[in-house]
C-alpha cells in the first residue's frame, strides 16, 4: 500500500458522508452521555454546607468559569506537568455536559481522560489502564470514596506498583470540586481496599500542597473561547505570593500584569481580570524569580485562549 493507496483509502472511507443539515447558529441539544450512577449529590451539598464554607469564602466562592455554551460546564481535572522542581500536578479545566454531577465528572476526567495540552501528561504517566473501566464517587460527612471499579478478571500483578501523584490528583480533584481543602478521600478498587497499589486504600488522603505546581489556572481551559472581560482564578504558592501574567499574540505581549495570592508560599487563591480584544492568544500565568536569574527558571503555566466577540 503506497501513498496513493492511502490517499484513495481515506477518501473512499468518507465518500458517502454528506452534510445533513444547514448551519444552525442557535443552541443545539447535545447528544447524551450516560455516566455511571451518581450517589454523591446530596452528600456534596451537605459537605459544602458543613465544612467547605471557610475555604469557599476565602476563594470568593466557587466561581464557575464561562462556558462556551449553556450546554457545557467546566470542571477542574488534574494532570501532570513538568516544573523546575520535577513533575507536579496542575489544574486542567475541562468542559463537560451540563447536568452531569460536577464531582463525578471531574474525577472521571482526571482518571480516565488524557489531557489535551501537549505540556500535560495523564496522572497515570501513560494512558489510563484499560482495566480501570468505571469510576464511581460516593461519600458523606467530609469523606469521599473513589472506586476504580476494577473487574474481578483484573490481574493485579500487572497493575502499576508506583504511580506518583495519582492519589494526590484524586485528592485535589475532589477538594477543588467541593471547595473543601479538608475533605478526606479514600480510594478502593471494586469495593475492596486491598489493592496495595491504590494510594489511599489504607489511609484516607488529604490534598497536599507539595504535590501542586507553583501556579495553577482553574477557570480557563486550554483552547477555550471566553468573553472579555474574563476573571482568571487559580491557586499559587509563590515567592511573596506574587503571580505574574501575560497575554501573548504570537511574540507580541498584548496585556500583562501581576496580582497577589492571598497567602505566601502555600497554595492560596489568586484572581485577576483579563480584558482584551477578540482573537487567539496564549495566556501565561507564573511565578516571579526571586533570584533574578541565578536560580532555576520560574514556572509558567501556559494555555491557549480565544477571546470571543
Amino acid at each position, binding site marked *: *500500500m503506497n*501513498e496513493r493507496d*492511502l*490517499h484513495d*483509502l*481515506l*477518501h*473512499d*472511507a*468518507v*465518500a*458517502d*458522508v*454528506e*452534510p*445533513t*443539515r*444547514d*448551519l*444552525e*447558529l*442557535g443552541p*443545539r441539544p*447535545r*447528544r447524551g*452521555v*450516560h*455516566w*455511571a450512577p451518581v450517589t454523591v449529590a446530596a452528600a456534596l451539598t451537605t459537605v459544602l454546607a458543613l465544612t467547605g464554607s471557610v475555604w469557599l469564602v476565602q476563594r470568593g466562592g466557587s466561581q464557575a468559569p464561562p462556558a*462556551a*455554551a449553556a450546554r457545557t460546564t467546566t470542571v477542574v481535572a488534574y494532570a501532570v506537568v513538568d516544573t523546575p522542581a520535577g513533575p507536579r500536578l496542575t489544574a486542567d479545566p*475541562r*468542559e*463537560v*455536559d451540563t447536568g452531569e454531577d460536577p464531582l463525578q465528572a471531574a474525577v*472521571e476526567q482526571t482518571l*480516565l*481522560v*488524557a489531557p*489535551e495540552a*501537549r505540556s500535560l501528561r495523564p496522572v497515570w504517566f501513560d494512558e489510563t489502564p484499560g482495566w480501570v*473501566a*468505571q469510576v464511581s464517587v460516593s461519600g458523606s460527612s467530609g469523606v469521599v470514596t473513589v472506586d476504580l471499579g476494577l473487574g474481578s478478571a483484573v490481574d493485579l500483578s500487572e497493575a502499576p506498583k508506583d504511580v506518583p501523584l495519582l492519589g494526590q490528583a484524586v485528592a485535589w480533584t475532589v477538594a477543588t470540586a467541593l471547595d473543601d481543602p479538608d475533605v478526606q478521600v479514600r480510594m478502593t478498587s471494586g469495593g475492596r481496599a486491598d489493592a496495595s497499589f491504590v494510594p489511599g486504600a489504607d489511609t484516607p488522603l488529604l490534598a497536599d500542597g507539595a504535590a501542586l505546581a507553583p501556579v495553577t489556572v482553574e477557570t480557563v481551559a486550554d*483552547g477555550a*473561547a471566553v468573553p472579555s472581560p474574563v476573571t482568571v482564578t487559580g491557586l499559587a504558592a509563590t515567592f511573596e505570593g506574587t503571580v505574574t501574567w501575560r497575554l501573548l499574540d504570537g511574540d507580541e505581549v498584548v496585556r500583562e500584569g501581576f496580582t497577589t495570592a492571598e497567602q505566601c508560599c502555600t497554595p492560596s487563591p489568586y484572581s485577576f481580570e483579563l480584558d482584551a480584544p*477578540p*482573537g487567539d492568544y496564549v495566556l501565561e500565568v507564573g511565578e516571579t524569580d526571586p533570584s533574578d536569574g541565578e536560580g532555576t527558571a520560574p514556572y509558567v503555566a501556559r494555555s491557549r485562549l*480565544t477571546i*470571543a*466577540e
Partner: protein
Amino acid sequence: MTTVTRSGTTTLEELYDAHRRRLLRLGTLLLGDASRAEDVVQDVFVALHRRGTQGLDEPAAYLTRAVVNGARSAGRRLSLARRHEEPPPVVREAPDDDLAACERRREVLDALATLPRRQREVLALRYYLDLPEREIARVLDISPGTVKTHASRAAAALRERLDPSRQETR
C-alpha cells in the same frame, strides 16, 4: 438559517458553503462517526460566528485546526460514553454491493480509530486533506520531523490493521 452579516471579506455563510463537506469528512475520519463530526463542524462555525471572521487571514487553516481541536474534545466525551454504553446492534438493510462498500468503509474507520490520536490526525491531514508536512506541523503545533515520524508509523499501523498478514518487519 440565521441571517449572516458580512464581516470582513468573507462571510460565515461563504466559508460554511466552501468548507463544510471537507471539514465534515475530516471530522468523520478523526471521530469515526459522521453524526458527531457534524456536531463538531456546527460548533466550530457557531464559535466562528461569535468570534467573527474579521482578521481571519487563513480561514481554511483556522477551520481545519478548529475541527481537529473540536474532534479531540468530542473524542474525549465519546471515549467516556463508550465506557458506559452497550455496543449498538448491527443493522443490515443495504443491498449486498452497498453493504460491502459500507463494511469496507466501516473497516477503515474502525482501523483508524485504533490508532493513537496524533497518528490518526496526521494521517487524515496528510492523506485526506493532502496537506504538506509543514502545514500539518502548524495545524498540530508539532515539528515537521514529528509529523514525518507519526505519518510513517501511522501508515504502517493502518496497513497492519487492515491486513494483519502483512506485518512489516524492520
